[in-house]
């Protein structure tokens, strides 16, 4: 069908067995994920790399940058194939979103803006997912906070006030000093004493 994807050695027995077919491309990805199949990756690469290169050349107007995008996109495909979820979309869509992210970061780095938003901040295509684990953490976090709130009740009122302002409202020690009209040193010592007390309470409870 397409000369660029023709295998030089042998043809596939079935005409549909080309990365052009969404099912076949997804199957290649799952073979890469499951067994690091170099043959599957080569096939996928030969299909998608020229298309990625054409896209990147249009985007950047620079052949070297385009090649870099192809290389970086396909490197992620090779290492992160396990993150492809067939029920969420096609293989082509997944590969496109990786290329989109890499393009975004290339443009950002061109401007030497380290602190600017990265593609991972916006589209977590390449983030290791662990949703169930997150839920467990959230639960523990809540329990811990509830428990801490109980302990805080037994702190002297002056210490409790400082702890709440710093750890619940997120104020800095200086801001707390200003708000309560007390010296910064007092805020620091109250915080230290409060944390000491909390530590003791947690220890004796264990």
């Amino acid at each position, binding site marked *: 069908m397409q000369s660029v994807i023709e295998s*030089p050695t042998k043809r596939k027995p079935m005409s549909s067995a080309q990365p052009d077919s969404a099912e076949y491309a997804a199957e290649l990805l799952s073979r890469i994920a499951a067994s690091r199949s170099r043959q599957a990756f080569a096939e996928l690469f030969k299909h998608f790399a020229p298309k990625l290169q054409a896209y990147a050349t249009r985007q950047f107007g620079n052949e070297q940058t385009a090649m870099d995008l192809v290389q970086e996109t396909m490197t992620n495909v090779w290492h992160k194939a396990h993150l492809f979820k067939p029920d969420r979309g096609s293989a082509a869509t997944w590969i496109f979103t990786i290329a989109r992210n890499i393009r975004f970061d290339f443009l950002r780095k061109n401007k030497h803006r380290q602190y600017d*938003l990265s593609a991972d901040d916006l589209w977590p295509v390449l983030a290791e997912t662990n949703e169930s*684990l997150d839920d467990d953490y959230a639960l523990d976090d809540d329990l811990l906070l509830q428990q801490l709130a109980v302990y805080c009740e037994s702190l002297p009122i002056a210490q409790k006030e400082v702890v709440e302002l710093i750890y619940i409202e997120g104020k800095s020690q200086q801001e707390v000093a200003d708000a309560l009209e007390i010296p910064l040193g007092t805020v620091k010592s109250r915080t230290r004493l409060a944390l000491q007390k909390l530590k003791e309470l947690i220890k004796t409870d264990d």
Partner: protein
Amino acid sequence: MIKSHPHEQLLVQYATGELNPAMLVMIGTHVDMCPQCQQHVADIEEQIALKVLGERVTDAALPNTVVDSMLESIMNSPAPIQVRAEAARDYISLEGKRFALPATLARNEHRIGQWHHMVSKLWRAPVDIGNGEMLNLIYMADGAQVPEHTHKGREATLVINGVFNDEFNEYRDGDFILLDEHHKHTPQTQGEDCLTLATLDAPMHFTAGISRLLNPFSSLFFR
């Protein structure tokens, strides 16, 4: 039920990454909150991918030698550093209340600065996304009112939690509102507080009564 969504063009530009960072965070956060737009963005990505990666490439731009050396170097490359999915903290606190952050904001929680009290019942926390761009969390306590104003640029607002209304409508969790210099409005809260994410292209311009005195200070709202 979210009733106010970003226009399709904004969703397309979000999917291709062709918006400024502040708007990318705004749209991303709306998409987190809105199953309908999640599906829409997925469809858009599918269509663009089909267009970009489904087309035939006529000239053999990649010679076999280049292909072979790229394949070799990719398959022998060390695995890249793993990006962790979980956010450090997925909530923020203000006035003793705790608000859950949608995923996009949670991933960028470290960019959220301190809360500042603006006027009466309004608080603001900047979201530092670099680039000198303005993105703010605005908290309106119950019974707050922002004086009537227009904008010199575009104002985008997304309700994260709660409800506010203006002369036109009532806005709840997930509602996305885009206004420009042609819209005059007076946002307020009645009976409930409201946390919003807001971006402004240019300072507000107060239009009514004594609040016009605020115009020299409107950068307080802007920044």
